[in-house]
């Protein structure tokens, strides 16, 4: 691919708003980093509570992302291949947990899975699975909507060609549909994982804030931040830890750099 070609022909002036956007995203972070208390930084980020919260965040975040992929990609495919009316309805339904302030989402989950809830018998609330559930609930819409956009953009022509070559539906899915929509799926997974790992409100309500069991990084940050008598340096340090780890994970995931095509 010729460099000129691969880059397309976006107007050069767009570099200005693009730079504004980028700076706007990065600058607050810089301001945050500037406020980290480096004297206690190492102690803050290596405390047992911090590390166990980080481990919990990563593991639940990854499990939630996997769950989101398992149910979200099919849902996205289904919406992408529906007629305009049905698709609009389904998309609206998927948008719900996105619009709901996460705390309300947590309350809703609690109403559903809590003691008096319809599915209270399962006894999920206030356990590690509850964290995963809360994260899945808030992160799923991101995956679904991003993947749906990508699948719709890539169209059905290649699927039809594959069908005409005798490929089964599963083969088509695995070898054609998903790889072709890969950039969008990667975007969706990134959004999903990031949202899951940053999830606070719903987890706080639905899963609670039990160190080692349901206290994820954002809850630990919240506790550090709200804890009486503690300065916010610890919270900033923990935020930085979460941030660096999350981005490292995302960079490690191979698909994270989809390049042009394999």
């Amino acid at each position, binding site marked *: 691919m010729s460099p000129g070609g691969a880059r397309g022909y976006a107007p050069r002036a767009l570099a200005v708003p693009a730079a504004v956007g980028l700076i706007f995203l990065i600058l607050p972070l810089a301001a945050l980093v500037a406020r980290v208390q480096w004297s206690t930084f190492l102690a803050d980020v290596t405390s047992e509570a911090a590390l166990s919260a980080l481990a919990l965040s990563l593991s639940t975040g990854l499990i939630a992302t996997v769950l989101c992929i398992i149910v979200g990609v099919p849902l996205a495919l289904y919406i992408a291949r529906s007629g305009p009316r049905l698709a609009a309805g389904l998309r609206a339904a998927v948008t719900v947990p996105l619009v709901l302030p996460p705390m309300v989402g947590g*309350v809703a989950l*609690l*109403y559903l899975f*809590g*003691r*008096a*809830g319809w599915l*209270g018998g399962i006894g999920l*609330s*206030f356990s590690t699975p509850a964290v995963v559930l809360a994260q899945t609930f808030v992160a799923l819409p991101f995956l679904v909507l991003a993947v749906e956009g990508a699948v719709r953009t890539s169209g059905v022509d290649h699927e039809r060609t594959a069908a005409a070559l005798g490929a089964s539906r599963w083969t088509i899915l695995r070898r054609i549909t998903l790889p072709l929509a890969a950039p969008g799926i990667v975007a969706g997974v990134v959004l999903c994982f990031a949202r899951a790992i940053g999830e606070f409100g719903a987890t*706080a*309500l639905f899963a*609670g*804030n*039990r*160190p080692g*069991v349901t206290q994820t990084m954002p809850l630990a940050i919240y*506790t550090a*931040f*709200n*804890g*009486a*008598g*503690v*300065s*916010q340096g610890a919270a900033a340090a923990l935020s930085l830890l979460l941030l660096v780890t999350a981005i490292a994970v995302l960079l490690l995931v191979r698909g994270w750099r989809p390049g042009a095509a394999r």
Partner: protein
Amino acid sequence: AGAAESSPSASPSETAAESTLSGELNVYAAASLSAAFDAIAEEFTAENPEVKVSPVYDGSSTLVTQILEGAPADVFASADEANMDKAGDAAIDPALFASNTLVIAVPAGNPGDVKTLADLAGVTTVLCAPEVPCGAASAKLLTAAGVTVEAASLEQNVTAVLTKVAASEADAGFVYATDVIGRDDIEVIVPEGADDVVNHYPIAALADAANPDAAEAFVAFVLSDAGQKILADFGFGKP
């Protein structure tokens, strides 16, 4: 302003001597209690080595919602009586165990030159929203002093007020005395009449506690002299 519905049942030494308590004890406590309760939990565990105390800190209203929805809590320590009331029958004989008073927090260096409650009317002041306990208390204090403050923002909790003040965003704000212990980016002014607006902290073992004996013991310990001393060390007032 204490409530004497419950009395300390046993002295700590007695408990330690006879301790047959064991298992996990889930203590749901208001976020503002975190530092103090960490210390209490440590002390309590020292006396009851078989009990593993797991404190859970969050806003009182969050905690009470969770308790009502079946959270595995044994003890609930609320930052206000209203949320303890919401727990209703779930809480067994709530007892007040601490109190807290409001102070005026100003940024280090006091840029707004705040000295009295009356000065708050002329500077950027943030208050807690009237719906939440610290907001209700702030309003009461101001009304009592006859000062009208146009709040720049009605924050959701004390932390938000503190953050705004620490960031010099606001020149002053009401926070609890215990919130500013050990902070060097905040200066504290104790307003006149603060003692008249006291926030009381109730604690109770829970009816659904999985470990009722330990729960009862923990509540007793908090109310005991040893517990009270720790609370005092963290700036809490007597119940």
